[in-house]
């Protein structure tokens, strides 16, 4: 009991402490700990700096654009894999989720190698085939950002909508058919409206996440001088003279946008989570597409090609050349990059070690904490459990960079020397992904029902023994699955780490960011492939440990 309560306090502290410091810092003239006064000047400064309005507009265009692209595509892919007789739909259902686990930043880099106006492989290919004078695409643009982000937010939409499509009582649609609706009218008048709460939730989450996206806009449009809110924060914290207070004010603005988004979503879906009386579980008849099913199969495969095969194929290719000019010729082929990344460059090696450490230990600590809090919230009558539940779910709506800026404030002058170490990165990751752990355990606990523990208590077990003998084995699969999932998410996390990194505590994603800045594309490619292989290893491990689909866990 005491342990659980302590865990809940720690979790709340992790969330509230940086947030508090963020607000405090945004209202001060100097760093916390330094003498200063309260002021609104930071906000004035942030909003009068000459680039702020284009920045806000860019941010919103990217948010809307990505949501508008990924929502219909995600919806269509769900429809293909759950409602039609498209061949290989079961495999597609799993494969469509894979891009979710890959790093959007790395993909952005890969796509810049494909669609850079001068040396992009795909651009050059298209110019050759169609005899064009100019490159047809320029990835270094806002549409370019929307393109890359959409590819990686489509799986978000997919996951959100998939659940509601699969849980829907089939007789909802069948009754529409017997009432005289064709297959397509049923889809538009019944299926999609019934899935609306999930679709809207997905849209809002994608919308909010886009606001917090750092890597892709940083790589694709920042070099040209186009900023979004996250890259602006980055500029204020990393470029001399550093203006931490102004950065906090911008972060506050970003936080408000996200919070508003989540609030709107909550309001909209309140009371609309349709609970239906389920009938018997029969297999609903799939829509017979006839020859069109090859078209739907092709569309889905194209998505997998542009989101996985093309970018990672390009990276794989480039990882084997000695330097990148936009051409691949046999005499340039080499294993040098892997040697450099795996054995030679100390900073890269350190980054790989740091990433593995943070991902393994951090994910474990995060799950240990959330397991205790989830038990406290779901199984006890402790006062304040509603508060703990709310607080631990809060980071869902907080962009990683906002958490990072708050942590920066909180630890930069703290008496405990955490700033600049690997621990602050770990704290940031744990804070950011606390909701994932909470959700995993809460769902498991709700499914299990308290009777299992109660019967153990009645059989004469003490509370602790019950926890150890009944709950721990029952929660173990969830714990293992959560561990692998968080491991993967920690492995690719960039936006928090980029604010908090310091020579010595860099992780793979930060190292990649540095290498891209230095134009070391072959090394970037090799390190990306290694990162992807580690993630792939995680996925395979997941499939070995838990006999269930990833999609069940991510929701």
């Amino acid at each position, binding site marked *: 009991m005491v342990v659980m309560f302590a865990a809940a306090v720690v979790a709340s502290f992790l969330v509230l402490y940086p947030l508090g410091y963020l607000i405090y810092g945004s209202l001060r003239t100097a760093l916390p700990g330094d003498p200063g006064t309260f002021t609104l000047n930071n906000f004035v400064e942030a909003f009068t700096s000459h680039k702020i309005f284009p920045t806000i507009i860019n941010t919103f265009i990217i948010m809307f654009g990505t949501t508008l692209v990924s929502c219909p595509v995600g919806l269509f892919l769900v429809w293909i894999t759950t409602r039609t007789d498209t061949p290989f739909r079961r495999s597609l259902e799993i494969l469509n989720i894979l891009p979710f686990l890959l790093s959007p930043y790395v993909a952005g880099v890969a796509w810049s190698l494909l669609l850079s106006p001068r040396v992009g492989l795909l651009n050059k290919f298209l110019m050759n085939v169609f005899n064009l004078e100019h490159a047809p695409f320029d990835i270094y643009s806002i549409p370019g950002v929307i393109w890359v982000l959409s590819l990686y937010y489509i799986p978000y939409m997919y996951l959100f909508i998939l659940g509601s499509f699969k849980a829907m009582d089939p007789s*909802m649609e069948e009754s529409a*058919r017997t009432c005289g609706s064709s297959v397509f009218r049923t889809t538009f008048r019944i299926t999609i409206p019934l899935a609306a709460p999930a679709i809207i939730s997905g849209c809002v989450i994608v919308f909010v996440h886009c606001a917090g996206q750092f890597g892709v806009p940083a790589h694709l449009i920042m070099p040209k001088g186009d900023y979004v809110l996250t890259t602006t924060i980055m500029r204020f914290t990393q470029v001399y003279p550093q203006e931490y207070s102004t950065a906090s004010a911008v972060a506050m603005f970003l936080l408000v946008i996200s919070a508003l988004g989540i609030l709107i979503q909550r309001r909209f879906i309140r009371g609309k989570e349709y609970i239906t009386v389920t009938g018997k579980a029969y297999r609903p008849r799939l829509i017979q597409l006839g020859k069109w099913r090859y078209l739907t199969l092709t569309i889905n495969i194209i998505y997998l090609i542009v989101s996985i095969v093309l970018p990672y194929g390009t990276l794989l290719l480039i990882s084997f050349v000695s330097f990148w000019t936009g051409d691949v010729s046999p005499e340039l082929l080499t294993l040098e990059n892997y040697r450099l990344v795996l054995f030679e460059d100390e900073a890269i090696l350190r980054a790989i070690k740091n990433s593995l450490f943070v991902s393994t230990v951090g994910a474990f600590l995060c799950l240990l904490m959330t397991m205790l809090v989830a038990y406290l919230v779901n199984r006890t009558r402790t006062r304040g459990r509603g508060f703990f539940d709310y607080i631990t779910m809060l980071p869902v709506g907080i962009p990683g960079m906002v958490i990072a800026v708050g942590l920066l404030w909180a630890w930069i002058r703290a008496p405990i020397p955490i700033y600049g170490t690997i621990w602050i990165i770990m704290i940031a990751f744990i804070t950011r992904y606390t909701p994932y752990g909470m959700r995993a355990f809460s769902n498991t606990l709700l499914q299990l029902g308290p009777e299992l523990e109660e019967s153990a208590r009645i059989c004469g077990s003490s509370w602790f023994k019950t926890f150890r003998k009944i709950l721990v084995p029952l929660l173990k699969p969830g714990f293992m699955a959560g561990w692998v999932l968080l491991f993967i998410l920690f492995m690719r996390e960039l936006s928090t780490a980029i604010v908090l990194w310091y020579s010595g505590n860099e992780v793979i994603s930060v190292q990649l960011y540095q290498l891209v800045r230095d134009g070391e594309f072959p090394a970037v490619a090799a390190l990306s492939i290694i990162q992807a292989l580690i993630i792939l290893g995680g996925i395979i491990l997941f499939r070995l440990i838990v006999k269930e689909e990833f999609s069940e866990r991510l929701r």
Partner: protein
Amino acid sequence: MIRRKGTMVFLKVLNLVKKFDSVVAVDNISFEVERGEFLTLLGPSGCGKTTILRCIAGLETPDQGDIFIGEKLVLSREKDVFVQPDKRGLGMVFQSYAIWPHLSVSDNIAYPLVERKLKKDLVRKKTKQILEMVKLSGLEDRSATKLSGGQQQRVALARALVYDPEVLLFDEPLSNLDAKLRIEMRNEIRNLQKNLGITSIYVTHDQEEAFALSDRIIVMNEGKIEQVGDPVTLFFKPKTHFVSQFIGQTNFIGGVAESVDKGVTRISALGTFIEIDATSEPKKGDKVFLSIRPEYIKINPKEKMQNELEGKVEQRQYLGSYGRFYVSVQGVPILVEMHDITKNDVGILPKEGDTVTLGFSSGDCFLIK
């Protein structure tokens, strides 16, 4: 094929086969439904009754068979005919009601009319009429999810009836309601069906429901038809082991045919001879099963009865106006039900451990295949 003379066949199912992977859910089933008839498919879960209904509705593609609705062939595997469910002109009430939560009560009910592109004022008029018919007037604008189970069931019924379909299909519509409401709703369904004269096919696993509603019942088991008939025939003349067990309760007694004469068959069973009215004709020495319903057996009869057995009361359950006795005869458990127990009888009821005589007449006992 089952057919009653002098009536008009409206819906016809011929040689229907449906497999799920290797499991045969519907095994070569044929039957006909007359215009205006209320036919029930009755059987335990997994017997294939719902699958048949879904094949008629067009929600399932059978592996083999033909289905006619009216004169129209809606399904034929041989001729490669498959009329889509929205073109079959059926009404269907689902077990889970399938009320759309994103639409109001009246929008739910008006849906089939809107899909048939009826004029707005006609839609409104018809919706109003049907709402009155199912006693939901005043709830038009209510969100469908804010209704009780019974009300949702009425909405589902109204939605299925509103466009005057030629056939109404019911898939265990009452199984999610509590017992009292179930009886109320089933009376209403029967009244509506009679008044509208609408041809109906009803699926249930509840024998009482089937009896209360149906003109005719098809008893199914493991994908096959066991027996077809009206409730009275099924109860008094069950043809198979399964039917006599599934409809009401019964005791089965194994024995050997001894002699057949003068319309009476003597069966050697339970260490004695049991006489029954000969319906079928077993040959001497044939192994047979006797079925006798627990309510036809009398305990310690006042007058001498045709068949009498000695047994010991193993368990006695007093259940108010009636009681159940589990009596062991030669080690075989026989269930006896005593009805109309009055205050005076209570004192003289046999107790557990008592030796009793069980009596029954030859007419109440029949042979089962």
